[in-house]
């Protein structure tokens, strides 16, 4: 059983009851604080370090071979809670040899940053690991149209991400080994 310990508070001494020594101590503390290094981040000049798992503006990424990963399956468009994504599906041009096993690609891909709530569902749902919420956190514009990121903008923001699968290469190798898919 826990034992209750009654702590007797010492009655305050006279000097403590005047509060003046305590005030002096407080003054010392605040004064010494004046010379401590400042913690302010001078924002536009100094930028914060963005951690890797930061959920910034959603972007489209390419694989290290510079190939478009999105296959325009429209899962992200479907899952997006505020309906910020609008995809116009298209086909891959026949003459693009490095993408010959990809069936589809987005013709246009728009994310409306006035609607996006940065929930990250699109990143979570994407079967091709093509859409990522990265470190861009400041987007602004003068008109509503400017706030809609089109495909070119999304790829510009996204850049390239390391790829673990190289799906198209695998498919290509599989076909040359005789498997149809």
């Amino acid at each position: 059983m826990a034992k209750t310990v009654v702590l007797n508070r010492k009655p305050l001494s006279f000097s403590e009851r005047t509060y003046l020594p305590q005030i002096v101590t407080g003054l010392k503390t605040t004064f010494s604080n004046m010379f401590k290094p400042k913690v302010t981040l001078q924002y536009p000049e100094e930028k914060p370090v963005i951690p890797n798992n930061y959920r910034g503006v959603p972007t489209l990424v390419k694989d290290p071979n510079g190939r478009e990963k999105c296959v325009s399956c429209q899962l992200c468009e479907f899952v997006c809670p505020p309906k910020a994504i609008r995809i116009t599906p298209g086909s891959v041009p026949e003459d693009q040899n490095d993408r010959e096993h990809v069936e589809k690609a987005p013709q246009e891909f728009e994310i409306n940053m006035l609607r996006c709530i940065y929930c990250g569902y699109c990143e979570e749902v994407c079967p091709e690991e093509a859409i990522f919420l990265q470190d861009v956190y400041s987007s602004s514009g003068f008109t509503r149209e400017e706030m809609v990121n089109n495909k070119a903008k999304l790829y510009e923001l996204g850049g390239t991400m390391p790829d673990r699968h190289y799906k198209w290469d695998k498919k290509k190798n599989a076909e040359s080994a005789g498997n149809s898919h």
Partner: protein
Amino acid sequence: MMDWIPQGLWFEVCLKVFFAFMMVGAVMTMAGYSVLAERKVSAWMQGRVGPNRTVLPFFEYIPIFGPLLKKLGIFQPLADGLKFLFKEEIVPGHVNKLYYYLAPLIALVPALTTMTVLPFGQIYWNDGTVSTLALADLEVGILFVFAVSSLGVYGIALAGWSSNSKYSFLGGIRSSAQMISYELAMGLSLLPVFLWVCAPGVTESGLSLSAIANSQAGGPWLFLVQPLSALIFLIALFAETNRLPFDMPESETDLVGGFHTEYGSFKFGIFFVAEYAHIVIGSAIFTVIFLGGWHFLPFMNDPWPSNWIGSLLGVGWFLAKTIFLIFFFIWIRWTLPRFRYDQVMHLGWSKLLPLALANLIVYLLIVTAIDQSTSANF
């Protein structure tokens, strides 16, 4: 003494008006820069950097000096003032218009009036005479200061009442209650000072502020002689200027903005400046009475020569002390939390007032004893 000045009444008047404008300019500038100091010091104490972006055009391009001024926020008060001027002026429909407009003025005018009797230095004339630098070196200087500075509370009470808002109203009530409780302690704490200054053996006497300052030349400063009076006066000064830990009329945590909740734009700006003008004048008066005014250090004669350089250095020294006190006001504000209303009343009535009375009686006895012993010698 002033034979280099052309004679004539109109000239005298013009000169006085000119000096008055200079003085108002100086005090208002100091008030403006106290606001900056407040922002900067509070920032430094909280590990921030404070305002450091405002800069006038072209100043930025001066090497070293320009960026330094910008970093110190030297131009911030200009921007603040302009902001107040250009804000939309909203007068709520439920206010009593006449008093609503009058209140900021009533708050500001006493703050600026007290400075007429404020001595801030000495001027050494060629023929060896010395006169005090002040707009009007009244014989009853300190009484004038007390009389006028307590009028400032009318501005606050009027603002609270005319705003027709519960927050403003509570702020106004608290302010007047606080003023009444601390005015007494303040007055009583100064009586021993005057007793001391007027004691036999001291050549200069009187209620004038310059006489008090001069009585400290080459001798101890009065705050060394009468630490308790100085302490009580300082605490009462904090209460009179509505500074934390006594900012009852404002108490932004429980009264939104206190008496100026309903005020905006320039009218709020006037209240704001009035508060800081009170601080500047209060610091200056404390300097004159307890910190030796424009005299150098305690027990030391002024090291500067008795000419215009000496005058300038004296005024500079006076300003330095005042600025330190302004800093002290700010320092206290960012150190102590606010008292509760009842604690303020308790402190005022049942602590400071008896203490001030006891202090008065003790010094009464001491001064009488000294008086008896010196008169016995004669």
